[in-house]
């Protein structure tokens, strides 16, 4: 079909795998961050806000490079944590997941925060007075009521993850079958004079996946509205 090589098929599969894993991995962290930013007051809130939103404004290659410095063999975390434990992250698909998760993190947090901020404070008070502790309230009230924001955030991160290139190429490298996602495959074809047809074919796949994801998001959003 479309003259794809095995490397191309694995690029497609890898893109979906990396984006999905990054999204699932980030969910609890993004939720926790959104919760803290919405419901807890503390000194340094502004710093957290800036830190969380930084990936939005930084060029992805900068993020990739910073991750490389931290997680590489000589890096802060690499030298003191990863090496002793025998964990290799750079140039593995795990690095691709981390790069995608970091770049997409603010995209996931934002809709979650918006949804949480829209929750009537009285609902939380009621749940507490009915005997629910703060964790109980999170699970039984905040989470279900903000689920639309959670889904929106997940879809955004997934979509962004499918297209992640800058950070990924630096920290995970371009390894066919291991870290070569669709954008990296397209880049390689696009640098080659005879690669235009293949590049366009992969572009078409990329667009198709994005369309499917966005249609799914719309459908889900409408379903939530109807249920209300």
């Amino acid at each position, binding site marked *: 079909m479309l003259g794809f090589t095995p490397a191309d098929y694995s690029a497609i599969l890898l893109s979906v795998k990396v984006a999905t894993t990054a999204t699932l991995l980030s969910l609890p962290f993004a939720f926790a961050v959104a919760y803290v930013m919405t419901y807890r007051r503390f000194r340094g809130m502004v710093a957290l806000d800036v830190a969380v939103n930084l990936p939005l404004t930084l060029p992805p290659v900068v993020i990739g490079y910073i991750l490389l410095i931290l997680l590489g063999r000589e890096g802060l975390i690499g030298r003191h944590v990863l090496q002793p434990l025998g964990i290799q992250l750079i140039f593995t698909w795990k690095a691709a997941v981390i790069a995608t998760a970091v770049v997409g993190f603010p995209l996931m947090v934002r809709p979650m925060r918006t949804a949480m901020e829209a929750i009537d404070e009285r609902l939380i008070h009621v749940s*507490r007075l009915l*005997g629910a*502790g703060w964790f109980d309230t999170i699970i039984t009230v905040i989470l279900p009521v903000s689920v639309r924001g959670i889904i929106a955030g997940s879809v955004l991160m997934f979509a962004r993850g499918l297209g992640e290139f800058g950070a990924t190429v630096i920290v995970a490298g371009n390894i066919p079958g291991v870290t070569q996602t669709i954008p990296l495959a397209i880049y390689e074809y696009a640098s080659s004079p005879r690669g235009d047809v293949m590049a366009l074919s992969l572009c078409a796949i990329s667009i198709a996946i994005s369309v499917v994801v966005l249609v799914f998001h719309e459908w889900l959003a409408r379903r939530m509205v109807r249920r*209300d």
Partner: protein
Amino acid sequence: MELQVTLQKRFNNFHLDVEFEVQGERIGVFGPSGCGKSTLVGLIAGLSKPDRGKVILDGETLYDGTKNLNIRPEHRRVGMVFQRPSLFPHLSVKGNLTYGLKRCSTANRKIAFDDVVEVLQIKHLMDRGVKYLSGGEKQRVAIGRAVLGNPRLLLLDEPLSALDDSLKFNIVPFLKDVCSTFTIPYLFISHSLLEMQIMTDQVLNLSDGRVLEKTTAEALVRARMGESMAGYMNLLRLTSPQPVDGIYAYNWGNQQLLIASGDNQPEGLFELLSTEIILFKSHPEAISARNLLQCRVIRTFEARHRVGVDLDCGGDGHLVAEVSRQAVEELGIMEGSEVYAAVKATAFRKLV
């Protein structure tokens, strides 16, 4: 129920500084908007933290600033109903009702689910989503939800203020029935004297963050009488209407009252303003008012520029009329005087 409170809280430009002790089942907290009623109640519930003070409920210290003791709201067993029902949108009516019940330890579960549903008449709503309930239905579910949490004190923060009049007095009997059936003491917060009259025995009068006095709704109403155009509101619970000449006659004490706004409902709550009662020294032979009551003056009391007259209309019927000081002198009205009270059939307003 016994509640001892000493609290101070300062924020923005507002300073709450209260100290009081109340015992009873139906306590009111009265005051104008912004006087600190909601703040006080939030502090008692544990939803916000005071600057300093003490809260002791039924002998248990819920908060003590000096000992750094602050029991979390989920452990205080204090329930709350707000102005807006704030039902959980993602749960059904049943889910809402059982939320607190599920989290109540079995030892404390004294109130049966079915009984509450029965009293509040919400059985037919059980599986519905909360979005399709009417305002009154929502508030009833909110009350049921709070009650099923088996609280030892129920805080009612202006629960009727968001409802329109007819709905307001519709909810009142449900509220009273639930609290009396299941013996739940409550603190009723409102800026409406009428609601105080109906719902409370004792009242804490709050103003600008301070407790002015501990009094009763009655006393407050009487004190306010002279200040307000409406005067004193007589509340009459009347039964057994009989249709007469196009209107209805209700039993009241050992007399009958003719009321234009009556209907064939077996029971009704009516309001009669003190200013609508005309007093005669002697029996007027012919009068257009359909109600003429023979009464004896129990006492008179001063209220700003007017004089309130407590009337005994026989058989447990009491009314408060309001006349000018001059009229009192002219008619020689004093304790023990026999007077006739005339009230037009149209003067009564049906509340429920």
